[in-house]
């Protein structure tokens, strides 16, 4: 069974990494703003921000039902019907001719 997790911005570990890398920049750049260390620190910030945004997008795309149905289209939760088959099912009810089924038919046709 899929465990539903609350949706967050980016996985905490990456968000923490971004925050940490920005702090590290302060240290690296305090001595010399144009040194290799400072520039490399900013590059790391950029790389981690990109990773965080990709992780966010990946989370956004993840609909557990869609993912499950992609691999198992025939299971009950994932079956899709077009109108034709509904009418067929409903007319077969109608053939058995009970008042109740007429009501059910109306309900199905209305959706």
């Amino acid at each position, binding site marked *: 069974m899929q465990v539903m997790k609350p949706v967050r911005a980016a996985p905490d570990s990456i968000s923490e990494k971004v925050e940490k890398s920005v702090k590290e920049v302060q240290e690296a750049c305090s001595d010399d703003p144009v040194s290799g260390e400072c*520039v*490399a620190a*900013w*590059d790391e910030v950029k*790389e981690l921000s990109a990773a965080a*945004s990709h992780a966010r997008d990946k989370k956004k795309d993840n609909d557990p039902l869609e993912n499950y149905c992609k691999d198992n289209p025939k299971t009950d939760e994932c079956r899709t019907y077009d109108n034709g088959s509904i009418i067929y099912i409903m007319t077969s009810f109608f053939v058995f001719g009970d008042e109740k089924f007429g009501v059910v038919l109306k309900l199905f046709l209305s959706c």
Partner: protein
Amino acid sequence: MAVCSAYTTQSLNSTCSISTPAKTHLGFHQKQVVFYRRSSKRGGSGSGSGSSSGPCVITCSAGDSQTVVIGLAADSGCGKSTFMRRLTSVFGGAAEPPKGGNPDSNTLISDMTTVICLDDYHSLDRTGRKEKGVTALDPRANDFDLMYEQVKAIKSGVAVDKPIYNHVTGLLDPPELIKPPKILVIEGLHPMFDERVRDLLDFSIYLDISNEVKFAWKIQRDMAERGHSLESIKASIEARKPDFDAYIDPQKKYADAVIEVLPTELIPDDNEGKVLRVRLIMKEGVKHFSPVYLFDEGSTISWIPCGRKLTCSYPGIKFHYGPDTYFGNEVSILEMDGQFDRLDELIYVESHLSNISTKFYGEVTQQMLKHADFPGSNNGTGLFQTIVGLKIRDLYEQITSSKTAAPLEATKA
């Protein structure tokens, strides 16, 4: 089209044994490789003379196993970019990371294409770069020899074990196997930096985002993250600029197509980066690539499609087309400023563009609509990325048909 594709790493362990007319390694550089299968099934369809009267002969043209290699220079991060998704979508099928492999792999695989991220060829991982004080943009942080060898191997039909650079941990992970696809796209910061790799590319694209637009996009993307502020975002762009200008920017002049994204000229002092002016700069004289044009090739046109036939909302759409020179090369530039609001604007514009290599009327519009949720779907970025995708498909078809033509003639004789 490929008659049959066979790829091996170092050893061939299938039911086929190979006999080649002249001995080279595995015979992949031969014109023809003949496979004899031990089973009694008849050999596969051929480029004409494939199955002889013998029980099982498959004739493959080694020329068809040549992968078409496309280079994309982009700063955006590897295989997950919108451009890649549009490109792979043109060929059909969704591109996904390799199943069952490293979940942090940067590679994307679809039926026809494989997208490789050049960050995988970093020679220094994040700690290593920090120690040496170099950015990822610096050539010293990348192994161009390995890049060249592996791209060359894939191009000639040999699978490779490519390292993985894990963007989350910043470490180099154990390699993954990459089998030669029909189309290989190498995306990253340095696809055209090394001359040997540049020569392997059948087509190259450079995505040039101007600083103002980069800044506006980064603000929208990164402000949600804790730890970022406006100043830190600006400083991070500024700090990388020297390395970027020294190592990445010069690749522009080698690209066959450059997509330049600039702030719009239609709205004075716009700094939101939502309305964009996008220029598609296409090199003239590139084999298998004929530039897109408006009205007539080689002439200069300014075109505002909005008017009596088409009503557009603010700020409208403006096109420009004309020949020019770019870093000493003859180019044609197609430019779009503004955005599309409605479907009919898009189809109207598409019907007036020429040489877009569509297979049916409305294909560009259809592709744009298919990915209406992607960024840039309502402006020149999406339009030109889609058009470049179609041009690449056209280029691929031209290359493969020219390769099958030659062996076909040989086998018919």
